[in-house]
C-alpha cells in the first residue's frame, strides 16, 4: 500500500474528534482581538527603513553576524576583496546573481558555481560560500534563502564562511512579511527555503556557545544601499 495506513489513521482521528474539546481549551487559545494579527505580539518592528536597518544590525551583533554597509555593487566588490584578504581565501563557492557577479569575478579566485551541476567534495574544500538571498528580516536578524536566490540548498551551509550580498531594499519587517515576499516573488512557496539567523552554533557541551558546529563558523552580510 503506497500510502500506508492513511484510511485507518483518518478513521481514528474522526472517531476521536466526534467528542468535542471542552470550552476552556478554546478560551485559552483565544484568537487575537479584532484588528490585530498574531505577529503583533512579537518584538516590535519599526516602520522606517533606517530604523529597520538599525534593528537588523543590532540583532546581527547579538547573533555574531558581521554586517558591512556598502554604497553600491562596486563597494560590495571592495568589501568582498578585503574579506578574501583578511581570511586568506584560496577558493570560493558561489552562484550567478545580480549583486554578486561583479564582486565574485573581481576576486580572481578559483570558484565553484553551484547553479550548474557541481561536486560536493569540491564545494566542501572552498573557504567561503558567496550567495544572494530572498530577504533580510529586521525582527530576528535573519536571512531568508531559497534554491533560486542562494545557489541551491547547500552553498549557504557547507563552506566555513558564508557571505550574503543583499540590498537594503530586501529588508522586511518580520517573518510574515518574509512569507508574503516568498509568495510574490516565486510562483509558489519553493520546495526549499531556510531562515538563517546567525552563524551555525551549539551549546551542547556545558551550555557554552561554540560557533561553527556543522555549518559556517562565520556569517557576513554585505548590505548594499538601494
Amino acid at each position: 500500500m503506497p500510502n500506508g495506513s492513511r484510511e485507518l489513521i483518518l478513521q481514528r482521528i474522526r472517531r476521536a474528534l466526534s467528542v468535542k474539546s471542552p470550552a476552556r481549551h478554546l478560551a485559552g487559545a483565544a484568537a487575537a482581538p479584532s484588528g490585530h494579527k498574531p505577529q503583533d505580539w512579537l518584538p516590535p518592528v519599526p516602520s522606517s527603513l533606517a530604523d529597520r536597518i538599525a534593528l537588523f544590525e543590532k540583532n546581527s551583533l547579538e547573533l555574531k553576524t558581521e554586517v558591512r554597509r556598502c554604497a553600491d555593487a562596486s563597494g560590495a566588490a571592495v568589501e568582498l576583496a578585503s574579506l578574501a584578504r583578511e581570511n586568506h581565501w584560496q577558493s570560493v563557492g558561489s552562484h550567478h546573481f545580480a549583486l554578486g557577479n561583479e564582486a565574485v569575478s573581481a576576486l580572481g579566485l578559483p570558484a565553484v558555481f553551484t547553479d550548474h551541476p557541481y561536486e560536493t567534495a569540491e564545494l566542501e574544500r572552498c573557504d567561503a560560500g558567496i550567495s544572494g538571498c530572498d530577504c533580510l528580516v529586521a525582527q530576528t536578524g535573519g536571512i531568508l534563502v531559497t534554491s533560486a536566490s542562494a545557489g541551491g540548498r547547500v552553498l549557504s551551509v557547507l563552506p566555513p564562511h558564508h557571505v550574503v550580498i543583499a540590498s537594503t531594499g530586501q529588508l522586511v519587517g518580520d517573518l510574515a512579511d518574509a512569507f508574503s515576499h516568498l509568495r510574490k516573488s516565486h510562483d509558489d512557496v519553493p520546495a526549499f527555503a531556510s531562515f538563517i539567523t546567525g552563524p551555525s552554533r551549539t551549546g551542547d557541551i556545558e551550555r557554552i556557545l561554540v560557533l561553527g558546529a556543522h555549518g559556517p563558523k562565520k556569517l557576513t552580510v554585505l548590505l548594499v544601499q538601494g
Partner: protein
Amino acid sequence: MSTESAQFHRDADRLTHDLRHRAWIQKALGGYYIKRDEQKAKYTDWQQARASAAAAKYEAVNHLDKYLSELSDKLAARGTKVFWAADGAEAADYIASVARDAGVKRIIKSKTMTGEEIHLPQALEKAGFEVVESDLGEFIVQLRGEPPYHIVFPSMHLTRGQIDDTFQKKLGSAHAETPEELTMIARGLMRQKYCEADMGISGANFAVAETGHISVTENEGNARLSTSLPDVLVSIVGIEKVVPKLDDLAVLLPMLATAGAAQNMTCYNTLLGGPRQPGETDGPREFHVVLLDNRRTALLADPEQRDALHCIRCGACLNVCPIFKNIGGHSYGTTYQGPIGSVITPHLRGLQSWKHLSFASSLCGACGEACPVKIDLHHHLLQNRRNAIAENPVWWEMPIFAGFAWFMRRPGLYRFAAPLLRLAGPLLHAIRGKDIDPMSLWTRTRDLPPAPPQSFKEYWRGRNAKR
C-alpha cells in the same frame, strides 16, 4: 508496582541524593532563565503571543483529519512520497524498505525525538545500516550508549571531561580541553559522514498544510546538511505537528526559540516541500515523509487532555520543573521527560505502567505557566491520577478516606479528639519513622510539625470571651 515504576523510584532516589548532579543541572539551567526572561521582555505581549500560538495549534488539532489530508496531498503534488504509519513498527519497516530499495549503506541522522520514540536508529542498525547521529549532543549520548537526557539539550548532564573521555575512548581522538576543541573534533568527523551518507533522516518541528512543507528547527546546521546532501531523505513527522497556515510559523518559530533555548530565533529554520525540483542542482532525489500516529490518536480521543497535542517540544516545562531539576532526565525512563512526558507517556505507552510519573509532581503549576502553547499541564497530571485510580482502585485507601470523611463531618467528635492528638504528639514524634511507627512509610522522609499549644477554635473562643 510496575517495573517502570520500580526503576523510576530507584533512579530518582539515587539522583536526588547526588548533590553534585543537582548542582550541575541547576547551573546549566541558570543561564537559560536569565536569557529567556531577556528575550520574553522584548515581546510586545508574551501572554497574547501564547494565546495566538495556542489558537493555531487548537485549530490544527481539532481539525486534524482535514489538515493532515491537505498536507499529504500538497506534499505529494511536488513529488514527495507520503507514508502514513499507524505505529512505530510500521514506520521503521517502511523506512528500512526505502533504504533497501535505494541500496543505502550509510545513514546520517539529524535530531528527531519521534525517531527516538519508535527506536528508529536501533531498528535500522539491526537491519544492517550504519546510523550516525549528527546533532552534537545526540552524537555524544549515542557514543555513550545513553538515551537523550533532555528533549532539547540531550547531553546537558555531562561535563567536558566526561565528553573528552568518551571521544578519546570511542573515536581515538587526542585529549581536548575546551568545548570549542571538542566541537571541532565532532565537526571534522561529521564532514566526512555527510559526504559519504546515502540517506538522511530528519524529524520535523512543524508541518504546514496550506503549502505542503515540513519545517525543521536547529542551531548547528547538521539538519540542513543531512537533508540536502544525501540522495534519499526521510523525515519522520508526528501527526500532531501539522499547522494550518504558513503564517502560523511567523509566531510559532520565534516562540519555539524563546521558550526552548532563550533565543530570538533558532539559527536555521528550514522549510522542505519536496525533493530536488526541475532547475535545482542539489537536494535529495527522493523525499519521503512518514506521518506517525503511534497512539497520538488515543490522546486525541481524550477531549480533556487533547490540548497536550499542542506541544511543540520546546522543553520549557522541563527547565522550570522542580521534579526534573532534582531527579534529572534519565530517571523518567521515557522518550519525553519532564511534565509533558509525565502527561503524555501514560497515553502513548499505557496508564497503569506509567501512572507513577503523574504522582511524582508537586502540582506547583510552573510547567503550565512556562508552556508557550498554554497546555494545562498540571491539571492533566491530576486527571491522570484520577483516571489511574478510577481504573484500578487501591482497596485500602477507600475505607481510610471514607473514615476520614465520616470523622470530619462530626464536629463534636473532632472537638473531643483534637486535644488528644496534642497529647499524643510527643509519642508520635518519638517513634517517627521507626519500624514500630504504623505510618513509617510516610513519616520516614517527612516531619510532623509539633501541634500548637492552642487550636484556632480555642483561640477564637478566648478572643470573643475577652471582649
